[in-house]
């Protein structure tokens, strides 16, 4: 086949190697900054079956680095668009697009149909889900992650090697590590890291060179430094995951795993000017916090009441304990209403705080 001639004439690959590629099945989770270059090279290389799972749609701000998409892609699903583009690139391979979220419920079934899993996600909830599902289904996981000008690459769970949990046993505290949409990223960086991931995939399938398993490669685009660190396997961490095998599909998804939810304390909220407080509890929930002069939109009505929200103001959303308010922020985010914060405190704590402040300023009431 002329298409793969430059592979086939490599003595290290040959027709035999190319046949291995055409029999391979690779699933890419996330068709974003990392997923795009990975998919492009794997499709071009003639990987026989490529799966793409991504629920997200293309936004204009993605085009700076997500090279499978163009201006006409905006507003359309990434998995479906990627399939269209890649079919044009190579119509001799099978491409499966899954325009949905990866969840605990669907992960194991999906992973079982593939030989290798690729992590191209932008959040920790999905990253740990992918890691755990790879351990349970015993699939090698080609990991990549980026931060501004730096990237990490590794191959987990390959021939009994370490997993992501052997490196970082538990997800970081919520909101402590920003992703690309919050902090920015050099456009070419995911191109470099994604290409390294694609390279590891080809090496695994072809049995070439040394696979980056049990090691973490750290790359810095600003000074071109690469540091490769050994990751020791932790049987305890892997066993913890295996113990969850039976109940895995029943695990409830963490809320809003595609975006970090900005939180604010009542004290910080009062320092801001021009804010709109939104109470997202049901109408009959007490105590009311009238002193904040909030608008009342129960969470269940939020999506149909977006017109009540003042786009010019910063929004501070509260509820009874601070959980529904997070969901509310993610709903607003989904509708591109930004500058919204979830208040850390619930209604009782807000009242307590207000009372304390009142005493502070009016000592005679104390």
């Amino acid at each position, binding site marked *: 086949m002329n298409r793969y001639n430059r592979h086939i004439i490599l003595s290290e690959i040959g027709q035999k190697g190319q046949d291995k590629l055409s029999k391979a099945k690779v699933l890419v989770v996330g068709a974003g900054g990392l997923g795009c270059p990975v998919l492009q090279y794997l499709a071009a290389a003639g990987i026989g079956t490529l799966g793409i799972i991504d629920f997200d749609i293309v936004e204009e701000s993605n085009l700076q680095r997500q090279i499978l998409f163009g201006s006409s892609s905006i507003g359309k699903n990434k998995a479906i668009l990627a399939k269209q583009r890649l079919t044009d690139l190579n119509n001799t391979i099978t491409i499966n697009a899954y325009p949905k979220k990866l969840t605990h419920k669907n992960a194991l079934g999906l992973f079982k149909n593939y030989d290798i899993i690729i992590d191209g996600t932008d959040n920790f909830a999905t990253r740990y889900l992918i890691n755990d599902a790879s351990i349970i289904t015993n699939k090698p996981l080609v990991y990549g992650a980026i931060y*501004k000008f730096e990237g990490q690459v590794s191959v987990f769970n390959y021939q009994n090697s370490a997993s992501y949990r052997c*490196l970082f046993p538990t997800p970081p505290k919520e909101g402590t590590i920003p992703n690309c949409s919050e902090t920015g990223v050099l456009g070419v960086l995911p191109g470099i890291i994604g290409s390294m991931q694609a390279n590891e995939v080809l090496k695994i399938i072809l049995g070439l060179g040394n696979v980056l398993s049990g090691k973490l490669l750290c790359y810095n685009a600003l000074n071109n430094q690469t540091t490769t*660190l050994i990751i020791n396997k932790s049987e305890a961490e892997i066993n913890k995951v295996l113990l969850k095998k039976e109940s895995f599909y029943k695990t409830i998804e963490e809320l809003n795993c595609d975006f970090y939810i900005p939180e604010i304390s009542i004290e910080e909220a009062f320092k801001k000017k021009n804010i709109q407080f939104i109470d997202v509890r049901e109408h009959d929930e007490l105590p009311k916090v009238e002193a904040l002069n909030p608008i009342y939109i129960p969470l269940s009505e939020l999506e149909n009441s977006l017109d009540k929200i003042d786009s010019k103001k910063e929004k501070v959303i509260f509820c009874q304990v601070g959980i529904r308010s997070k969901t509310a922020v993610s709903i607003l985010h989904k509708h591109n209403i930004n500058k919204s914060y979830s208040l850390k405190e619930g209604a009782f704590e807000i009242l307590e705080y207000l009372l304390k402040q009142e005493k502070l300023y009016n000592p005679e009431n104390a």
Partner: protein
Amino acid sequence: MKLTVKYFGLLAEVTQCSEEQFKFSGTLISEFLEAIYLKHPKLKEKDFQAAQSNEIVSKNTKITQAEIVLLPPFAGG
């Protein structure tokens, strides 16, 4: 002992340097961390791992090398 400490990712923003010299008299990674937290209190709020001799090590590992790398998890993709 004089250590060279390297900070990856957002740790470099927290400490405002990607690399620094640090004088240290203890023996374990955990003791080193306590000492570096005194210099950079905000590091304590961050999740990260420590590595020496190009190997990620646990907190009760003895420090044998003059270079320590601190690396956080990355979210982006």
